């Protein structure tokens, strides 16, 4: 049975939600690992959860990149194992150079907590394996800095290599201005690295894994992660 490491930084606040989704909802083994640990030996996947690591002071995700655990996360990524950053975790992966681009302040300049629609842009990533290509899911965001930025060359590469995993869309699955909550370039909500094993996404599957929470679409993303991890073990 695969073991999932949920890395906890000072200021993280979604670690228990991720752990609960994996462990209590899907029956997998997920453990919290403190950021001062320098090894992730024995784990098959790492998840960097949401929150406000180090208060998001300086820049979102910036200080966390210096934590000892980040070397272990990098090693795991180099090994081809799944490394997932959700929200603040995505921002950390960008700061650490494991994913391209950076997050600007939302176009509204406010924090936004809201359910919205996402379109899966590929069905073979660790977070989309059990979705159909083009499938629409309804998952909330909760962030102030999710306005994805990358220079044109990087954006071209991401598109050419199909490295966009999720895009913000409307209910009908189309991109339009009103469904892009934060002004993200190309309506990008999630991307993957070149090897396809590191995924960052701004929306929170860890907040919608049971219908009473709004939707249970997030559950599908965690099921993907489990399946992908098993397939690539």
């Amino acid at each position, binding site marked *: 049975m695969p073991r999932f490491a949920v890395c906890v930084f*000072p200021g993280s*606040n979604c670690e228990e939600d991720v752990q609960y989704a994996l462990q209590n909802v899907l029956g997998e083994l997920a453990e919290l690992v403190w950021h001062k640990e320098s090894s992730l030996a024995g784990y098959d996947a790492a998840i960097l959860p949401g*929150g406000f690591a180090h208060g998001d002071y300086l820049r979102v995700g910036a200080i966390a990149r210096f934590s000892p655990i980040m070397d272990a996360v990098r090693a795991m990524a180099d090994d081809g194992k799944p490394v997932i950053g959700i929200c603040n975790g995505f921002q950390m992966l960008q700061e650490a150079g494991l994913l391209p681009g950076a997050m600007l302040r939302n176009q509204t300049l406010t924090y936004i907590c809201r359910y919205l629609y996402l379109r899966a842009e590929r069905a073979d990533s660790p977070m989309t394996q059990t979705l159909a290509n083009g499938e629409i899911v*309804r998952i909330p965001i909760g962030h*102030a800095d999710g306005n994805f930025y990358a220079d044109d060359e990087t954006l071209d590469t991401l598109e050419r290599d199909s490295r966009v995993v999720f895009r913000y869309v409307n209910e009908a699955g189309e991109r339009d201005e009103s469904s892009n909550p934060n002004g993200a370039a190309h309506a990008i909500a999630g991307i993957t690295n070149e090897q396809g094993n590191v995924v960052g996404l701004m929306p*929170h599957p860890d907040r919608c894994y049971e219908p009473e929470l709004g939707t249970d679409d997030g559950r599908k993303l965690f099921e993907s992660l489990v399946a992908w991890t098993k397939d690539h073990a």
Partner: protein
Amino acid sequence: MILDEKLEAHNLTRDEYDTIVSKLGREPNDNELGLFSVMWSEHCSYKSSRVHLKRLPTKGPNVLQGPGENAGVVDIGEGLAAVFKVESHNHPSFIEPFQGAATGVGGIIRDIFTMGARPIALMNSLRFGPLSVAKNRSILRGAVAGIANYGNSMGIPTVGGEVVFEDSYNLNPLVNAFCLGIAPKERIFLAAAEGVGNPVFYVGAKTGKDGIHGATMASAEFDEAAEEKRPTVQVGDPFMEKLLLEACLELMESDALVAIQDMGAAGLTCSTCEMGARGGMGIEIDLDKVPKRETGMSAYEILLSESQERMLLVAHAGKEAKVEAIFDKWDLDASAIGRVTEDGLLRVIADGRTVASVPNRYLADEGPVYERALERPASFATQTEVHADDVDEPSDLGETLVQMLSSHTIASKHWIYEQYDHMVRSNTIVMPGSDAGVVRIKGTPMALAMCLDGNGRYASLDPYLGGASAVAESCRNLAAVGATPIGATNCLNFGNPEKPEIMWQFSQAVDGIRDACERFGVPITGGNVSFYNETEGVGIYPTPVIGVVGIIDDATKCVRHHFQQPGDLIYLLGETHDELGASEYLKAVHARIDGRPPRLDLDVEAALHGLMKDATSQRLLRSAHDLSDGGLGIAIAESLFGPLGETMGAAVAIEAPRRADGVLFSETQSRILASVAPESVDTLSALAERHGVPLSRIGVTGGERLDIQINGTHAISEMVATLRETWWTAIERGLSS
């Protein structure tokens, strides 16, 4: 400085000073005067309100801790306790909306975790002047962003609250913040120092010069000199508080801790003397050991600083290393600054000398108590009822409904609550925008419901009714989601207590709260009083805000406010009278703020709650929504709008012996709008009869329009999508004006 000036600077009266001298048997030195000044301020001593607050019911079978500690505690079963309280941060939020509101949230969170509870939900009650005034827009933006910044960073969902706009809050906003936490019932921590020789630790942020005399500032009116008081604003550090929260909760799991208290208003002074007084102990602290952010701080400044994110704790002697190790894990320093003594004194050492020495109880327990003069305002007697016939009948009720939905008090507050993380911890099963916020408790079948309510307009026209109606409305909101109230907290926002008319309002409001709480069996477990809410001599509406917490035994029985299925039957539970006095309709449509607020019959209200309890536990209702501002018309409209943007139409037909606007917009109390599957109707009718609650079928759900007929005449026919758009965007439109 001559004595009079000194006393004025310290907001102490000559009589109070004489009492201090006679208690001490000597003149206090400057440091001691500072201690008395903050501890005997209105904010800390409750000197004007105490005699009245005593009338509130505080006992109940499930109350584990009533008023007097940092927060109230109620047994919720399953070995768990709910710890909650509401507190005001009105004055700081006017001076610096972002930081003022943010530190208000920080303060109430500390009150909760200081008792050993993990905070799991926040709410806030906000009142602003009209958005047509630029300054009010910027206060709103700042306060909301500040609340969001603090609560979001802490990872605590903000699940509800209220936002009201009235001229009376122009340049005197109200920011009341509520926090609820969960603790193991057997492991509540109190703030009573015990054990002579036990070490006293200071943890958290360093002490700076910020906020000196914040407590005395909150006890004075605003005038132009408030500008000069600006350096007293504190800057919040939610990251520091998150570390403190985790470290303190970890420490509480160990066996090292004796007592703990946050440093809130009046900082180090308040926390030491209160901890000492509660335990009947003395405490000696050495200011040289207090971590400081700046050099050259005087003893006076260190004692009175209100720097945020600090805690004081007493540990068991011999367990110091354990305390230090836990704080070290979280990169925090724990500094031993003193010890518990047996002499009952707060003894302060600086540079090896004693710089203050005062019995803790003089400061914490023996402050002045005033029985201030009360006087009923002459205008009170002249309030009369207002009926539909007293106003011009609108020619197009559809347009009137749109006008009502655009009123900022009624409009959707999504622009505000979407800035709050309301989903973190993945427990929120009823999100903001409904009658009450509901969070499930993982590992148990149950959920807790909570809401904050108050109606300053009602209270200004009849403070007794204002107090009682706030309790009734809160409990009704809980009834609507299927919860049973277990305890309440309150925040009483009033003007200058030295004015007899204000004090009369206060006393009346307390009586109203008392009577309603007693009738519904809901004990008050804590709260807060904010006086001197006046700008340039003009008081705000007296504004009692009530927060009620309730239990839903089985979270799957929780009821939502919006229509769920086409073809369900719409029922009104309760009876409508022609009561337009003090209503939102009078204000928004007829520009009148007058008249007697709607009556409240506590027995009728209690019967409704009883019916709701049975109906929800038998799963008879598909949806339920309480009626308040805007009456039936607004309740029907809001029931068309689901939280995730889903909508459903309705066809409504009402027969009533009165004009259509009176039917739709009367604010008669004790009513709930419900939708019911056809097969449940008979059971519900029988149940309603048993509870003595009138029940009327008024329509059916479905379609894309809202059609309303009254007494056989067509009154409203609008597209639901159009109504929703108006209601959804009104605040944004107001902000961009």
